[in-house]
């Protein structure tokens, strides 16, 4: 079981890597900063180089197998191609490269398309790198300890995370039950809407009840949502965070030196 990757946990081959050891809050802030850099870039070559940073990090400093990473990004690759294509083919521009029917590819359109597409891919790459190297428990703890998120919200997030698979099971059950009872599937949008309301009521009823029970159980165990508590796992920013910061800075400097100067 440990060999397969599940959402909310560090990818097994990444467990001892540098990126996995970085404090989740620090990692999140650094990644957000890096994403911000993309916004100031308007040249596809630079954007491409910037996008290579999280990809390179994923397979080196995070030790995620190349194939796993590619699979993770593949749905977004399609999105990238279609965005770029639409902007390139239909975007406004002066310098016409190719013309046929209603499609006019202009240089300006292509540049714009690549910029948007690469930016998006870069964001996704940072997101994937974060998700595959971060344990959800540590993330919540770090939010509470480093970013001073109120425990009331931090633990609610964790409890909610546990609920996700339960919701899916519950949904499957309801779907099966309705199938047995012969609920006719009205085709089209109206049918979808009907099915949606029919599923939602029992799902919500059950969800609310479960959530109430969890809340009652946790309060009965002395949880009051206040900051007045100790932590079994204390997370402190340390050497790995500094190392990761330096690494990211160095890579961005290289890109700046080669493309932006």
């Amino acid at each position: 079981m440990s060999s397969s990757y599940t959402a909310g946990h560090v990818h097994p081959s990444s467990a001892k890597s540098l990126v996995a050891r970085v404090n989740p809050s620090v990692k999140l802030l650094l990644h957000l900063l890096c994403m911000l850099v993309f916004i100031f870039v308007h040249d596809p070559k630079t954007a491409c180089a910037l996008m290579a940073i999280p990809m390179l990090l994923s397979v080196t400093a995070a030790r995620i197998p190349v194939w796993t990473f590619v699979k993770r990004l593949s749905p977004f690759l399609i999105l990238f191609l279609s965005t770029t294509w639409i902007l390139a083919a239909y975007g406004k521009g002066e310098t016409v490269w190719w013309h046929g029917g209603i499609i006019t590819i202009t240089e300006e359109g292509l540049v714009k398309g690549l910029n948007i597409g690469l930016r998006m891919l870069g964001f996704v790459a940072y997101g994937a790198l974060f998700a595959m190297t971060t344990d959800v428990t540590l993330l919540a703890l770090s939010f509470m300890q480093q970013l001073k998120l109120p425990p009331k919200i931090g633990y609610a997030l964790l409890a909610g995370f546990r609920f996700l698979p339960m919701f899916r099971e519950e949904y499957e059950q309801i779907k099966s039950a309705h199938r047995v009872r012969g609920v006719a599937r009205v085709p089209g949008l109206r049918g979808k809407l009907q099915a949606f309301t029919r599923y939602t009521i029992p799902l919500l009823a059950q969800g609310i009840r479960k959530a109430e029970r969890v809340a009652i159980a946790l309060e009965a165990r002395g949880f009051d949502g206040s900051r007045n508590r100790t932590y079994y796992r204390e997370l402190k920013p340390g050497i790995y965070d500094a190392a990761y910061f330096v690494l990211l800075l160095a890579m961005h400097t290289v890109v700046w030196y080669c493309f932006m100067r």
Partner: protein
Amino acid sequence: MNTLMQKTPFLACVGVSVQFFDRDAPVLREMNVSIERNQAVLLLGPSGSGKSTLLQVLSGIIPRSIEAWFKGTVTRPDSVGVMFQDPDAQFCMLTVEDELAFSLENRSVPREQMRAVIEKAMRDVRLDIPLSTPIRELSGGLKQRLALACLLALEPEVLFVDEPTAQLDPLNTQLVLDDLRRLHGQKTLVLIEHKLDGVIEWVDRVLLFNAEGRIVADGAPLDVVREQAEMIRESGIWTPKLWPVTWEQLLAPVPHPLAERLQTQLATGKKQTARPAADAPILDIRDAGLRYKNGHVVWQGLNASIQPGEWVAILGPNGAGKSTFLKMVGGLIEPTQGNVQLKGKDVSRYKTPELYDTVGFVFQNPEHQFIADTVFEEAAFGGKVAGWPQERIEREATQLLADFRLQELRDKNPFTLSQGQKRRLSVAGMLLKRQDVLLLDEPTFGQDAATTAELLQRMQERNEAGTTILMATHDVELVAEHASRVLVIGEGGLLFDGSPHDLFSQPELLEKASLTAPLAYEYRQRILDAGQKEKVEEGSLSV
């Protein structure tokens, strides 16, 4: 008033009344209860009688976590713990270790002391699993014992327990009840539990509630159960199988009336061994197996052919795949290997409406099945879909509602019914079409004795009329009494296929499947162990 009142009670409520905002009448009225240190008190009563409400008042959940109109005073020690029924709704962390630590963090226990407390709590409930185990991988039984460990880590003076074994298989029920029993005398215990065997023998005191939420008896278990026997039976409260009779009395040379009853039960059980004539099977499960995409094998190599009119019980430990098995038989999950033949045709080749005209499925959670806005529409739904004439729908659905004592609720919304009413409606809704095969996933789960007896009565009628029944359950007494055949699923395959009598005569197999023997069979085993051969040879007990 007098000297007794001057002493501050250990755990008590005085003049407590509670009314929930969505109800017309108070649940508790002017309730006075006082409990001494280290006493073990069992709250007994029909469902909806206010037992849980009293437990929530005494433990402080009302008014702290549950909002309600509340009056009166409650005295309680500083540190109390509450254990709940739902194994999935007591945790917020992902691993065993973090969950135990969470309890300690809430009380600001210094970090350095935590590890030792965590290890001690694990030993207290005999939980021998790695601390890093993810909670979602634990079975219901282990989750309940982890929940207990999380409470004991806080060293509470009072432990409140609200139906902790409702969702557990027989073996895990025993383990959890044993853990609680070992706390007797060290902690004050306030318990609600339907499975009285394993509890009523050792508690000090029973508070008996009537349906109106008043305490009608308060005293030693023996006195309460003897004096109120009639009221207990009439209000549908579960009663212990054996207690207050002891094994000594049962095995005594002069037979106890219960012993005679058990002998009759055994004799009938043996007769049931006879299988119906070998017609063409209505269901034929051929080498069926199910493997998830992640490689996990639920079970494999299942073979069973079921004759029309059989009542088949599906037994097995929590998490063995009983529900999944029923779903496969009902065409809701396709096996990854082998197939299921229904009346000689592969289930996966049926069209959906055609399949569910033949097979009915009662799901574990009644709410999942509810489609219509009123109780009547809910019962009539199957007829409407099938295009029956209005007058036939009206007649048959009304009859069903009458059979299940739901006629007065016919215009209510199904979601507003009580637990027992919901269950009765979900079964009623599935019976309208008179399908040949009825699949039921733990239909008696969480129901009181009265509702259970009623449901079984209705199913018995259908079975006698020729309906084939497959039913997943944990209730071995029910199996001994009603089923003609048992399939035991466990350890990734079919552990047993045969009569209930043969199954319950094999103690090793029962243990492997997390089951316990029904009382009659335990009785037989004890007689055999005691070497009272003469009784064995006399008649019905022969092996």
